[in-house]
Protein backbone atom coordinates (compact mmCIF):
# COMPACT_ATOMS: atom_id res chain seq x y z
CA UNK A 1 0.00 0.00 0.00
CA UNK A 2 1.47 3.34 -1.05
CA UNK A 3 1.36 6.06 1.54
CA UNK A 4 2.63 8.78 -0.76
CA UNK A 5 1.77 9.03 -4.44
CA UNK A 6 3.26 11.63 -6.73
CA UNK A 7 1.33 11.58 -10.01
CA UNK A 8 2.55 13.33 -13.14
CA UNK A 9 3.82 16.28 -11.14
CA UNK A 10 5.32 19.16 -13.10
CA UNK A 11 6.43 22.48 -11.71
CA UNK A 12 7.16 25.55 -13.80
CA UNK A 13 8.94 28.52 -12.25
CA UNK A 14 9.13 31.97 -13.72
CA UNK A 15 12.62 33.32 -13.43
CA UNK A 16 12.93 36.91 -14.67
CA UNK A 17 9.91 36.37 -16.85
CA UNK A 18 11.32 33.19 -18.41
CA UNK A 19 9.37 30.03 -17.57
CA UNK A 20 11.60 27.20 -16.36
CA UNK A 21 10.55 23.59 -16.08
CA UNK A 22 11.93 22.65 -12.65
CA UNK A 23 10.12 19.33 -12.37
CA UNK A 24 8.89 17.44 -15.43
CA UNK A 25 6.11 14.84 -15.09
CA UNK A 26 7.44 12.94 -12.10
CA UNK A 27 5.71 9.77 -10.95
CA UNK A 28 6.76 8.22 -7.67
CA UNK A 29 5.25 6.26 -4.82
CA UNK A 30 6.55 5.69 -1.32
CA UNK A 31 5.29 2.85 0.86
CA UNK A 32 4.43 3.08 4.57
CA UNK A 33 7.78 2.13 6.02
CA UNK A 34 9.98 2.96 3.06
CA UNK A 35 12.94 5.33 3.02
CA UNK A 36 13.33 6.87 -0.43
CA UNK A 37 16.20 9.18 -1.30
CA UNK A 38 15.90 11.78 -4.03
CA UNK A 39 19.40 12.10 -5.41
CA UNK A 40 20.76 14.46 -8.01
CA UNK A 41 22.99 17.40 -8.80
CA UNK A 42 21.79 20.89 -7.95
CA UNK A 43 19.03 22.12 -10.21
CA UNK A 44 17.54 18.66 -10.78
CA UNK A 45 14.32 19.65 -9.04
CA UNK A 46 14.65 17.33 -6.06
CA UNK A 47 14.09 20.08 -3.50
CA UNK A 48 11.26 21.55 -5.55
CA UNK A 49 9.58 18.17 -5.63
CA UNK A 50 9.89 17.90 -1.85
CA UNK A 51 8.38 21.37 -1.43
CA UNK A 52 5.43 20.28 -3.55
CA UNK A 53 4.95 17.17 -1.42
CA UNK A 54 5.22 19.34 1.71
CA UNK A 55 2.45 21.60 0.41
CA UNK A 56 4.77 24.62 0.33
CA UNK A 57 4.46 24.86 -3.46
CA UNK A 58 1.54 23.89 -5.64
CA UNK A 59 2.37 21.72 -8.64
CA UNK A 60 1.77 23.32 -12.03
CA UNK A 61 0.42 19.99 -13.22
CA UNK A 62 -0.32 16.67 -11.61
CA UNK A 63 -1.15 15.86 -8.01
CA UNK A 64 0.29 14.60 -4.76
CA UNK A 65 -1.68 12.22 -2.55
CA UNK A 66 -0.73 11.47 1.03
CA UNK A 67 -2.72 8.67 2.65
CA UNK A 68 -5.28 9.13 -0.14
CA UNK A 69 -5.68 12.87 0.52
CA UNK A 70 -4.83 15.49 -2.08
CA UNK A 71 -2.08 17.87 -0.94
CA UNK A 72 -2.97 21.44 -1.73
CA UNK A 73 -1.73 24.64 -0.17
CA UNK A 74 -0.92 23.18 3.22
CA UNK A 75 1.09 20.45 4.81
CA UNK A 76 -0.68 17.14 5.37
CA UNK A 77 -1.18 16.61 9.11
CA UNK A 78 0.53 13.21 8.94
CA UNK A 79 3.64 14.76 7.35
CA UNK A 80 6.55 16.55 8.99
CA UNK A 81 9.42 18.44 7.41
CA UNK A 82 13.06 18.62 8.49
CA UNK A 83 14.95 21.51 6.93
CA UNK A 84 18.64 22.25 6.77
CA UNK A 85 19.82 23.57 10.09
CA UNK A 86 18.47 27.05 9.43
CA UNK A 87 14.92 25.92 10.08
CA UNK A 88 15.12 26.47 13.84
CA UNK A 89 13.68 29.58 15.46
CA UNK A 90 16.69 31.41 16.92
CA UNK A 91 14.66 33.13 19.66
CA UNK A 92 13.26 29.87 21.02
CA UNK A 93 15.12 27.53 23.32
CA UNK A 94 15.66 23.91 22.32
CA UNK A 95 12.56 22.77 24.18
CA UNK A 96 10.37 25.53 22.71
CA UNK A 97 11.62 24.77 19.21
CA UNK A 98 10.85 21.10 19.64
CA UNK A 99 7.42 21.80 21.10
CA UNK A 100 6.46 24.31 18.39
CA UNK A 101 4.74 21.90 16.00
CA UNK A 102 2.63 20.64 18.88
CA UNK A 103 1.81 24.19 19.94
CA UNK A 104 0.69 24.92 16.39
CA UNK A 105 -1.74 22.00 16.75
CA UNK A 106 -3.14 23.37 19.95
CA UNK A 107 -1.66 20.74 22.24
CA UNK A 108 -1.89 21.78 25.88
CA UNK A 109 1.25 23.13 27.51
CA UNK A 110 1.83 20.26 29.95
CA UNK A 111 1.36 17.69 27.24
CA UNK A 112 3.71 19.62 24.93
CA UNK A 113 6.41 19.72 27.55
CA UNK A 114 6.02 16.04 28.29
CA UNK A 115 6.27 14.99 24.64
CA UNK A 116 9.14 17.42 23.98
CA UNK A 117 11.07 15.96 26.92
CA UNK A 118 10.53 12.48 25.54
CA UNK A 119 12.00 13.42 22.15
CA UNK A 120 14.81 15.45 23.68
CA UNK A 121 15.87 12.26 25.42
CA UNK A 122 15.41 10.23 22.24
CA UNK A 123 17.77 12.42 20.19
CA UNK A 124 20.24 12.77 23.05
CA UNK A 125 19.81 16.44 23.89
CA UNK A 126 19.11 16.06 27.60
CA UNK A 127 20.78 18.91 29.45
CA UNK A 128 20.51 21.31 26.52
CA UNK A 129 16.80 22.13 26.91
CA UNK A 130 17.24 25.82 27.63
CA UNK A 131 19.96 26.55 25.11
CA UNK A 132 19.34 28.69 22.06
CA UNK A 133 20.04 27.18 18.62
CA UNK A 134 23.15 29.28 17.97
CA UNK A 135 24.67 27.92 21.16
CA UNK A 136 24.55 24.40 19.69
CA UNK A 137 26.79 22.64 17.19
CA UNK A 138 25.48 21.93 13.71
CA UNK A 139 24.79 18.29 14.55
CA UNK A 140 22.85 19.19 17.69
CA UNK A 141 20.78 21.71 15.78
CA UNK A 142 19.82 18.97 13.36
CA UNK A 143 18.87 16.74 16.29
CA UNK A 144 16.51 19.52 17.38
CA UNK A 145 15.08 19.70 13.86
CA UNK A 146 14.47 15.96 13.77
CA UNK A 147 12.97 15.92 17.26
CA UNK A 148 10.62 18.77 16.33
CA UNK A 149 9.46 16.88 13.25
CA UNK A 150 8.90 13.65 15.22
CA UNK A 151 6.81 15.12 18.05
CA UNK A 152 3.63 14.93 16.00
CA UNK A 153 4.38 11.24 15.30
CA UNK A 154 4.28 11.73 11.53
CA UNK A 155 3.69 8.89 9.11
CA UNK A 156 5.68 10.71 6.45
CA UNK A 157 8.96 12.48 7.12
CA UNK A 158 10.15 14.93 4.46
CA UNK A 159 13.83 15.78 4.79
CA UNK A 160 15.41 18.50 2.64
CA UNK A 161 19.17 17.94 2.63
CA UNK A 162 19.07 17.85 6.42
CA UNK A 163 22.74 16.97 6.82
CA UNK A 164 24.02 18.98 3.85
CA UNK A 165 25.73 21.65 5.95
CA UNK A 166 27.38 19.27 8.41
CA UNK A 167 30.99 18.13 8.39
CA UNK A 168 31.63 14.56 7.30
CA UNK A 169 32.02 13.02 10.77
CA UNK A 170 28.94 14.72 12.19
CA UNK A 171 26.99 13.75 9.10
CA UNK A 172 27.92 10.08 9.56
CA UNK A 173 26.79 10.22 13.19
CA UNK A 174 23.52 11.90 12.27
CA UNK A 175 22.79 9.31 9.57
CA UNK A 176 23.12 6.54 12.13
CA UNK A 177 21.03 8.53 14.58
CA UNK A 178 18.27 9.01 12.02
CA UNK A 179 18.08 5.27 11.34
CA UNK A 180 17.97 4.61 15.08
CA UNK A 181 15.14 7.10 15.62
CA UNK A 182 13.22 5.58 12.71
CA UNK A 183 13.51 2.16 14.32
CA UNK A 184 11.54 3.31 17.34
CA UNK A 185 9.24 5.64 15.36
CA UNK A 186 8.82 4.06 11.95
CA UNK A 187 7.52 6.25 9.13
CA UNK A 188 7.79 6.71 5.39
CA UNK A 189 10.68 9.00 4.54
CA UNK A 190 11.41 11.13 1.50
CA UNK A 191 14.99 12.29 1.84
CA UNK A 192 16.58 14.82 -0.51
CA UNK A 193 20.34 14.65 -0.83
CA UNK A 194 23.19 15.25 -3.22
CA UNK A 195 25.43 12.76 -1.39
CA UNK A 196 25.71 9.43 -3.23
CA UNK A 197 27.07 7.70 -0.11
CA UNK A 198 24.32 9.15 2.00
CA UNK A 199 21.61 7.95 -0.37
CA UNK A 200 22.97 4.41 -0.55
CA UNK A 201 23.58 4.25 3.18
CA UNK A 202 20.04 5.30 4.10
CA UNK A 203 17.67 4.38 1.32
CA UNK A 204 15.53 1.41 0.49
CA UNK A 205 15.24 2.98 -2.94
CA UNK A 206 17.34 5.69 -4.55
CA UNK A 207 15.57 7.91 -7.05
CA UNK A 208 18.15 9.48 -9.34
CA UNK A 209 17.05 12.76 -10.87
CA UNK A 210 18.64 14.69 -13.70
CA UNK A 211 18.47 18.43 -14.32
CA UNK A 212 16.95 20.73 -16.94
CA UNK A 213 14.24 19.70 -16.95
CA UNK A 214 14.15 17.91 -13.60
CA UNK A 215 12.99 14.37 -14.18
CA UNK A 216 13.57 10.88 -12.84
CA UNK A 217 16.48 9.22 -14.60
CA UNK A 218 16.49 5.94 -12.78
CA UNK A 219 15.22 4.24 -9.65
CA UNK A 220 17.52 1.78 -7.90
CA UNK A 221 16.54 -0.65 -5.15
CA UNK A 222 19.14 -0.90 -2.43
CA UNK A 223 18.92 -4.39 -1.00
CA UNK A 224 21.99 -4.27 1.23
CA UNK A 225 21.31 -5.51 4.77
CA UNK A 226 21.58 -2.98 7.59
CA UNK A 227 23.73 -1.73 9.18
CA UNK A 228 25.45 -0.99 5.90
CA UNK A 229 29.18 -0.74 5.60
CA UNK A 230 30.23 2.06 3.24
CA UNK A 231 33.60 0.38 2.72
CA UNK A 232 32.21 -2.99 1.64
CA UNK A 233 32.57 -4.13 -1.96
CA UNK A 234 28.80 -4.28 -2.52
CA UNK A 235 28.42 -0.73 -1.26
CA UNK A 236 31.18 0.73 -3.39
CA UNK A 237 29.84 -1.13 -6.41
CA UNK A 238 26.51 0.61 -5.90
CA UNK A 239 28.25 3.96 -5.50
CA UNK A 240 30.00 3.34 -8.82
CA UNK A 241 26.75 2.36 -10.50
CA UNK A 242 25.08 5.56 -9.30
CA UNK A 243 28.04 7.71 -10.29
CA UNK A 244 28.00 6.14 -13.75
CA UNK A 245 24.35 7.00 -13.99
CA UNK A 246 24.86 10.66 -13.15
CA UNK A 247 28.24 11.09 -14.79
CA UNK A 248 26.77 13.14 -17.64
CA UNK A 249 25.01 15.50 -15.24
CA UNK A 250 28.17 16.10 -13.27
CA UNK A 251 30.24 16.93 -16.33
CA UNK A 252 27.41 19.19 -17.50
CA UNK A 253 27.50 20.96 -14.15
CA UNK A 254 31.29 21.23 -14.25
CA UNK A 255 31.17 22.95 -17.62
CA UNK A 256 28.97 25.77 -16.35
Amino acid at each position, binding site marked *: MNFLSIRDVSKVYERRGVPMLAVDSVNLTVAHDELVCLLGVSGCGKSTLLQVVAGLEDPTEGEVLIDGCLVSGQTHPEASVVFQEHGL*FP*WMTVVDNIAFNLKARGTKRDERQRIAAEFIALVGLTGFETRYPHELSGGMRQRVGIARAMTTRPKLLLMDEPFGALDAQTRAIMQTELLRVLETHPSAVLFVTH*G*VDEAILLADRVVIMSPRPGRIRKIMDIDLPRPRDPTSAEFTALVRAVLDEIHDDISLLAKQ
Partner: protein
Amino acid sequence: MVSMPEAISAPSAQPSAGTRQKALPKTRPLSSSALLGLIPIVLLLIAWELATRSGSYSSVLLPSPMAVATVFVHDWSDLARHTGASVLRVVIGVSIAFVTATPLGLLIGRFPVLDRIMDWSVQIFRSFPIIALIPLAILFFGIGDRPAIILIWIAAFWPLLISTIFAVKNVERTLMKAAKVANASNALILRDILLPSALPSILTGLRLAIGAGWLTVVTAEMMAVRSGLGYLIMYAQVIFRPDLIIAGILIIGAIGLMFDQCVRVARKRLCRWQEGLVLES
Protein backbone atom coordinates in the same frame (compact mmCIF):
# COMPACT_ATOMS: atom_id res chain seq x y z
CA MET B 1 32.06 10.69 1.43
CA VAL B 2 31.43 10.70 -2.26
CA SER B 3 29.40 13.74 -3.10
CA MET B 4 28.21 15.47 -6.17
CA PRO B 5 29.79 18.78 -7.14
CA GLU B 6 27.20 20.71 -5.18
CA ALA B 7 28.92 19.63 -2.01
CA ILE B 8 32.15 21.26 -3.01
CA SER B 9 30.79 24.67 -2.23
CA ALA B 10 28.92 23.52 0.86
CA PRO B 11 30.09 25.22 4.04
CA SER B 12 32.57 23.02 5.87
CA ALA B 13 33.05 22.11 9.49
CA GLN B 14 30.64 23.45 12.06
CA PRO B 15 31.95 24.40 15.47
CA SER B 16 31.89 21.10 17.34
CA ALA B 17 30.89 20.34 20.92
CA GLY B 18 27.88 22.14 22.25
CA THR B 19 29.38 22.93 25.60
CA ARG B 20 29.64 26.57 26.52
CA GLN B 21 33.18 27.85 26.67
CA LYS B 22 34.49 28.85 30.04
CA ALA B 23 34.60 32.60 30.40
CA LEU B 24 38.11 33.99 30.57
CA PRO B 25 38.80 36.25 33.55
CA LYS B 26 37.72 39.63 32.34
CA THR B 27 40.17 42.49 32.20
CA ARG B 28 38.16 45.23 30.60
CA PRO B 29 40.19 47.05 27.99
CA LEU B 30 40.06 50.82 28.23
CA SER B 31 38.43 51.02 24.83
CA SER B 32 35.26 49.35 26.15
CA SER B 33 34.73 51.54 29.21
CA ALA B 34 31.40 53.33 29.25
CA LEU B 35 33.10 56.33 30.77
CA LEU B 36 34.73 57.11 27.41
CA GLY B 37 31.44 58.74 26.46
CA LEU B 38 32.15 61.46 29.01
CA ILE B 39 35.22 62.76 27.14
CA PRO B 40 33.46 65.05 24.63
CA ILE B 41 31.15 66.30 27.38
CA VAL B 42 34.05 67.23 29.67
CA LEU B 43 35.88 68.91 26.78
CA LEU B 44 32.78 70.94 25.98
CA LEU B 45 32.45 72.00 29.64
CA ILE B 46 36.06 73.14 29.65
CA ALA B 47 35.60 75.09 26.43
CA TRP B 48 32.48 76.68 27.87
CA GLU B 49 34.26 77.65 31.07
CA LEU B 50 37.18 79.12 29.10
CA ALA B 51 34.81 81.06 26.86
CA THR B 52 33.10 82.69 29.84
CA ARG B 53 36.44 83.47 31.51
CA SER B 54 37.89 85.03 28.37
CA GLY B 55 35.35 87.80 28.83
CA SER B 56 34.57 88.08 25.12
CA TYR B 57 30.95 87.25 25.87
CA SER B 58 28.89 89.13 28.39
CA SER B 59 28.17 86.93 31.39
CA VAL B 60 24.60 88.17 31.13
CA LEU B 61 24.22 86.45 27.76
CA LEU B 62 26.50 83.47 28.38
CA PRO B 63 26.38 82.39 32.03
CA SER B 64 29.28 80.29 33.33
CA PRO B 65 28.87 76.57 34.03
CA MET B 66 28.84 77.40 37.74
CA ALA B 67 26.01 79.92 37.28
CA VAL B 68 23.95 77.30 35.46
CA ALA B 69 24.75 74.77 38.16
CA THR B 70 23.27 77.09 40.76
CA VAL B 71 20.04 77.21 38.75
CA PHE B 72 19.65 73.49 39.45
CA VAL B 73 19.91 74.29 43.16
CA HIS B 74 17.72 77.36 43.33
CA ASP B 75 15.04 76.45 40.81
CA TRP B 76 15.01 72.69 41.26
CA SER B 77 11.32 72.46 42.08
CA ASP B 78 10.32 74.38 38.93
CA LEU B 79 12.72 72.33 36.84
CA ALA B 80 11.44 69.09 38.32
CA ARG B 81 7.81 70.05 37.75
CA HIS B 82 8.35 70.99 34.11
CA THR B 83 10.59 68.00 33.45
CA GLY B 84 7.97 65.70 34.96
CA ALA B 85 5.28 67.21 32.73
CA SER B 86 7.37 66.71 29.58
CA VAL B 87 8.46 63.18 30.44
CA LEU B 88 4.92 62.12 31.25
CA ARG B 89 3.68 63.39 27.88
CA VAL B 90 6.43 61.55 26.01
CA VAL B 91 5.82 58.33 27.91
CA ILE B 92 2.09 58.46 27.21
CA GLY B 93 2.47 59.51 23.58
CA VAL B 94 5.15 56.98 22.72
CA SER B 95 3.29 54.21 24.57
CA ILE B 96 0.18 54.88 22.51
CA ALA B 97 2.34 54.87 19.39
CA PHE B 98 3.94 51.57 20.43
CA VAL B 99 0.69 49.72 21.02
CA THR B 100 -0.80 51.02 17.77
CA ALA B 101 2.16 51.00 15.37
CA THR B 102 3.63 47.62 16.29
CA PRO B 103 0.52 45.47 15.66
CA LEU B 104 -0.25 47.44 12.51
CA GLY B 105 3.32 46.99 11.31
CA LEU B 106 3.18 43.24 11.96
CA LEU B 107 -0.01 42.98 9.93
CA ILE B 108 1.26 45.14 7.07
CA GLY B 109 4.51 43.18 6.94
CA ARG B 110 2.64 39.88 7.00
CA PHE B 111 -0.01 40.61 4.41
CA PRO B 112 1.29 42.10 1.14
CA VAL B 113 -2.14 43.41 0.18
CA LEU B 114 -2.21 45.61 3.30
CA ASP B 115 1.26 46.79 2.39
CA ARG B 116 0.09 47.83 -1.04
CA ILE B 117 -2.88 49.66 0.44
CA MET B 118 -0.82 51.49 3.06
CA ASP B 119 2.54 52.13 1.44
CA TRP B 120 1.83 55.44 -0.29
CA SER B 121 -0.06 56.81 2.67
CA VAL B 122 2.74 55.90 5.06
CA GLN B 123 5.27 57.66 2.88
CA ILE B 124 3.07 60.75 2.57
CA PHE B 125 2.10 61.07 6.21
CA ARG B 126 5.52 60.44 7.63
CA SER B 127 6.89 63.30 5.54
CA PHE B 128 4.81 65.90 7.38
CA PRO B 129 7.02 67.94 9.71
CA ILE B 130 5.42 67.87 13.13
CA ILE B 131 5.85 71.64 13.47
CA ALA B 132 3.51 72.07 10.55
CA LEU B 133 0.85 70.09 12.40
CA ILE B 134 1.01 72.13 15.61
CA PRO B 135 -1.32 74.93 14.46
CA LEU B 136 -3.87 72.33 13.38
CA ALA B 137 -3.51 70.45 16.64
CA ILE B 138 -4.16 73.67 18.59
CA LEU B 139 -7.23 74.43 16.48
CA PHE B 140 -8.61 70.91 16.95
CA PHE B 141 -7.66 70.22 20.54
CA GLY B 142 -7.00 73.62 22.12
CA ILE B 143 -4.11 74.30 24.47
CA GLY B 144 -2.94 71.60 26.91
CA ASP B 145 -1.89 67.98 27.21
CA ARG B 146 -4.14 66.62 24.49
CA PRO B 147 -2.59 68.30 21.43
CA ALA B 148 0.92 67.63 22.78
CA ILE B 149 0.30 63.93 23.35
CA ILE B 150 -1.39 63.52 19.98
CA LEU B 151 1.55 65.20 18.24
CA ILE B 152 4.01 62.92 20.06
CA TRP B 153 1.93 59.94 19.09
CA ILE B 154 2.09 60.97 15.42
CA ALA B 155 5.82 61.68 15.57
CA ALA B 156 6.64 58.37 17.27
CA PHE B 157 4.23 56.33 15.17
CA TRP B 158 6.14 56.35 11.87
CA PRO B 159 9.58 55.16 12.95
CA LEU B 160 7.95 52.33 14.90
CA LEU B 161 5.66 51.38 12.05
CA ILE B 162 8.35 51.47 9.41
CA SER B 163 10.93 49.51 11.38
CA THR B 164 8.31 46.89 12.27
CA ILE B 165 7.22 46.46 8.64
CA PHE B 166 10.83 46.27 7.52
CA ALA B 167 11.69 43.66 10.14
CA VAL B 168 8.73 41.45 9.33
CA LYS B 169 9.51 41.52 5.63
CA ASN B 170 13.04 40.40 6.41
CA VAL B 171 12.16 37.33 8.44
CA GLU B 172 14.11 34.39 7.05
CA ARG B 173 12.08 32.48 4.52
CA THR B 174 13.08 29.09 5.92
CA LEU B 175 11.58 30.10 9.26
CA MET B 176 8.30 31.03 7.63
CA LYS B 177 8.34 27.68 5.85
CA ALA B 178 9.00 25.92 9.15
CA ALA B 179 5.98 27.69 10.61
CA LYS B 180 3.87 26.88 7.58
CA VAL B 181 4.64 23.16 7.57
CA ALA B 182 3.62 23.10 11.23
CA ASN B 183 0.27 24.50 10.02
CA ALA B 184 0.64 27.34 12.51
CA SER B 185 -2.30 29.75 12.64
CA ASN B 186 -1.89 33.38 11.65
CA ALA B 187 -2.21 34.43 15.29
CA LEU B 188 0.57 32.05 16.31
CA ILE B 189 2.77 33.17 13.42
CA LEU B 190 2.31 36.82 14.41
CA ARG B 191 2.95 36.20 18.10
CA ASP B 192 5.58 33.47 18.13
CA ILE B 193 7.42 34.05 14.86
CA LEU B 194 7.05 37.56 13.51
CA LEU B 195 6.99 39.50 16.78
CA PRO B 196 10.08 37.93 18.39
CA SER B 197 11.93 37.91 15.11
CA ALA B 198 11.14 41.59 14.54
CA LEU B 199 11.66 42.64 18.15
CA PRO B 200 15.30 43.79 17.86
CA SER B 201 14.34 45.99 14.95
CA ILE B 202 11.17 47.18 16.70
CA LEU B 203 13.26 48.27 19.68
CA THR B 204 15.58 50.16 17.36
CA GLY B 205 12.43 51.81 16.03
CA LEU B 206 11.45 52.56 19.62
CA ARG B 207 14.72 54.39 20.17
CA LEU B 208 14.02 56.52 17.11
CA ALA B 209 10.42 56.98 18.22
CA ILE B 210 11.40 58.20 21.66
CA GLY B 211 13.87 60.59 20.07
CA ALA B 212 11.18 61.91 17.76
CA GLY B 213 8.70 62.13 20.63
CA TRP B 214 11.16 64.00 22.82
CA LEU B 215 11.87 66.51 20.05
CA THR B 216 8.16 66.93 19.50
CA VAL B 217 7.26 67.49 23.13
CA VAL B 218 9.66 70.40 23.46
CA THR B 219 8.45 71.96 20.22
CA ALA B 220 4.81 71.44 21.09
CA GLU B 221 5.28 72.90 24.55
CA MET B 222 6.68 76.06 23.05
CA MET B 223 3.38 76.68 21.34
CA ALA B 224 0.55 74.53 22.54
CA VAL B 225 1.02 74.01 26.26
CA ARG B 226 1.65 76.08 29.38
CA SER B 227 3.97 73.64 31.12
CA GLY B 228 6.94 71.41 30.38
CA LEU B 229 10.55 72.05 29.42
CA GLY B 230 9.70 73.66 26.07
CA TYR B 231 7.42 76.11 27.82
CA LEU B 232 10.05 76.75 30.50
CA ILE B 233 12.66 77.59 27.88
CA MET B 234 10.37 79.98 26.04
CA TYR B 235 9.33 81.56 29.32
CA ALA B 236 13.00 81.93 30.37
CA GLN B 237 13.66 83.87 27.19
CA VAL B 238 10.81 86.25 27.99
CA ILE B 239 12.07 86.94 31.51
CA PHE B 240 15.66 87.07 30.18
CA ARG B 241 17.15 84.11 32.04
CA PRO B 242 19.76 82.51 29.72
CA ASP B 243 20.98 80.41 32.65
CA LEU B 244 17.52 78.88 32.92
CA ILE B 245 17.42 78.29 29.17
CA ILE B 246 20.71 76.42 29.28
CA ALA B 247 19.61 74.44 32.33
CA GLY B 248 16.47 73.41 30.43
CA ILE B 249 18.48 72.38 27.39
CA LEU B 250 20.86 70.33 29.52
CA ILE B 251 17.94 68.48 31.10
CA ILE B 252 16.50 67.75 27.66
CA GLY B 253 19.79 66.20 26.60
CA ALA B 254 20.18 64.22 29.83
CA ILE B 255 16.67 62.80 29.65
CA GLY B 256 17.22 61.91 26.00
CA LEU B 257 20.29 59.93 26.99
CA MET B 258 18.41 58.27 29.82
CA PHE B 259 15.52 57.15 27.60
CA ASP B 260 17.96 55.71 25.11
CA GLN B 261 19.79 53.77 27.78
CA CYS B 262 16.50 52.38 29.09
CA VAL B 263 15.61 51.00 25.66
CA ARG B 264 19.07 49.50 25.31
CA VAL B 265 18.72 47.71 28.61
CA ALA B 266 15.25 46.51 27.62
CA ARG B 267 16.64 45.25 24.34
CA LYS B 268 19.42 43.34 26.07
CA ARG B 269 16.88 41.68 28.32
CA LEU B 270 14.21 40.95 25.72
CA CYS B 271 16.55 39.82 22.98
CA ARG B 272 18.82 37.66 25.07
CA TRP B 273 18.69 35.04 22.30
CA GLN B 274 20.73 37.38 20.13
CA GLU B 275 23.73 37.27 22.44
CA GLY B 276 26.66 35.99 20.48
CA LEU B 277 24.69 36.18 17.24
CA VAL B 278 25.18 39.85 16.52
CA LEU B 279 28.15 42.12 17.09
CA GLU B 280 26.42 44.51 19.42
CA SER B 281 22.83 45.17 20.25
